[in-house]
């Protein structure tokens, strides 16, 4: 990967850009072909694209205001009337609109936490793995210590003290999530440290920053991207759990976790209020997991080889850890 980038650097500026563009197109096309062969991965991608579209265009798609109450229509079962296709909850709010708006919260929290935790974890992991020595010891000690922490309980404690809000949720989940990225990044970086092309780059006189960004970082794309996708799924589940406990999103806003907690009160009289958000969460998380395992297989040359060599050996997702 890095070797190819080096070779193309000899070409003149314009040629380089064109070369890059062609490379990107070629790899995109082969990824697309791959995806058509892996139906599970395709399903995952469709789910993710749908989630994003629904979240972005929520005001255009949703038939009702998600918090508009209509007490005459309260607890309408799904598939009964055209005006409330998926029924209503105990306050007569349209379930479909609430699901649509709820997807926004899941997407927002997921993206924010992945960005914050992923960036900080990757940077710290890079520094630890690349420079080694004291920086390494320090970062990895913090990682080890925090992994040994009762993370979720501590998160509960922090939210209970500073008060629940979307911001609190993002902060707490980011603090609880950065270590995974740091660990993976550090592992890959430390093992690359001795690779001939890294040593060559240093001998030629590249600055550390250049070595890290140009030569080390491209190797991290596959594991970190896969990790981001998997963490996204974990965050959606965590939002549901925390909102159910009353420590996540607060009532005027809509979220799938909050809908679960509303539904719990009407469990015995209205099955759909709790079932619909549960199904939405399960579908999205399942889709993300399937997409992640496909992503890992295509973006990691090692896994790719195994897939083609072993033909029938590694059918479908190879594991979500």
């Amino acid at each position, binding site marked *: 990967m890095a070797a190819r980038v080096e070779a193309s650097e000899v070409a003149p500026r314009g040629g380089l850009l064109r070369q890059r563009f062609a490379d990107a197109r070629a790899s995109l096309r082969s990824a697309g072909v791959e995806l058509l062969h892996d139906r599970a991965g395709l399903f995952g991608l469709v789910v993710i694209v749908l989630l994003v579209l629904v979240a972005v265009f929520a005001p255009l798609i949703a038939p009702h205001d998600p918090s508009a109450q209509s007490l005459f229509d309260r607890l309408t079962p799904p598939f009964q009337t055209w005006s409330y296709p998926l029924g209503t909850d105990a306050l007569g709010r349209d379930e479909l609109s609430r699901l649509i708006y709820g997807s926004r919260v899941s997407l927002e929290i997921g993206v924010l936490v992945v960005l914050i935790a992923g960036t900080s974890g990757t940077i710290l992991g890079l520094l630890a793995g690349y420079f080694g020595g004291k920086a390494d010891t320090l970062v990895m000690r913090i990682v*080890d*210590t925090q992994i*040994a*922490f*009762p*993370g*979720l*309980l*501590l*998160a*509960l*404690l*922090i939210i*209970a*003290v*500073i008060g629940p809000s979307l911001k609190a949720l993002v902060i707490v989940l980011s603090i609880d999530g950065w270590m995974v990225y740091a660990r993976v990044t550090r592992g890959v970086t430390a093992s690359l440290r001795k690779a001939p092309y890294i040593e060559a780059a240093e001998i030629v006189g590249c600055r550390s920053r250049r070595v890290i960004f140009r030569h080390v970082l491209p190797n991290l794309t596959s594991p970190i991207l896969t990790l981001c996708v998997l963490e996204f*799924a974990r965050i959606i*589940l965590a939002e*549901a*759990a925390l909102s*159910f*406990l*009353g*420590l996540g999103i607060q009532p005027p806003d809509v979220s799938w*976790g909050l809908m*679960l*907690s509303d*539904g*719990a009160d009407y*469990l*015995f009289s209205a*099955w759909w209020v*709790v*079932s619909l*958000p*549960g199904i939405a*969460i*399960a579908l999205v*998380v*399942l889709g993300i*997991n*399937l997409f992640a395992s496909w992503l890992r297989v295509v973006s990691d040359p090692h896994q790719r080889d195994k897939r083609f060599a*072993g033909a*029938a*050996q*590694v*059918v*479908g*997702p*190879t*594991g*979500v*850890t």
Partner: protein
Amino acid sequence: MGRFALRRTAYGIVVMFFVTAVVFVTTRLIGNPANTLLPLTATQQQRQAFSHQLGLDRPIPTQFVKYLEGVAHLDFGNSLLQSRPALNIVLERLPNTLELVAFGLSIAILLAIPLGVLAALRPGSLVDKVTVVVSLAGLSVAQVWLGLLLILIFAAELKVLPSAGIGGLEHLILPGITLALPALGRLVMLTRSTMIDELNTQYVQTARAKGLPEIRVVGLHALRNAAIPILTLAGWELIRALAGFSVVVETVFAWPGVGYLAFQSIQQSDVILLQAIVIVMGFLIVAINIGLDLVFKTIDRRVELA
């Protein structure tokens, strides 16, 4: 081995110190229980008296040292609402949580390993596909929803199992399954992929070529080498169950364990009780971590641990 155990224990104490410090900082620096606990009508004098009674008017470092002293002597202070030692309340509830977690994780581990191995033996077969689909579904559902769904089916519709509380084995089944299913999914997927890798190695081929019965090849050679990642994940599941998942599951089923206690103490702003819960569970987790490291070191000499 002895030195190794000693070093891990020393490290565990350091971690405990940090847990205590973080718990202290979050509760003392950010929130003042005098504001959250006393009614809005309380006068300034009443607030000050309350703060003084809890020692909140002293400088933060003094408070911290005092708090550490207390923790070292297993004195976590009195629960703000129940006015009796917080530690006693936590320890009363702890056996219930341990019972639930032990039951749930036993189901998960005892089912996951055979299922994962079975799937790995014939990748792509019907058994494999069914196992993968069920496992993926298991690890994709929200635990809250799984619990509520089980209540809906088995308690509300079929009326065969109780929906809440503690009692005999029948009370343990639904919360146990809720706790087990996501863990089961993750463990099956890992067992399957590790075993597929192991079964493709040369030593397995050699063992087969030598004519060893398949059960010995799989059970003795491959599974033994796959054991470390599987056990690592099982340990992680145990820790996460104790430190988080149990809060959700116990709350859904009103199971009187530490997790439900944590939920209640948050609702009642009983900061002292919540502190005690986090520190006791933190201690338990650190102890489990040390224990697991020692186990790994014993069964696999290749393991290098700092």
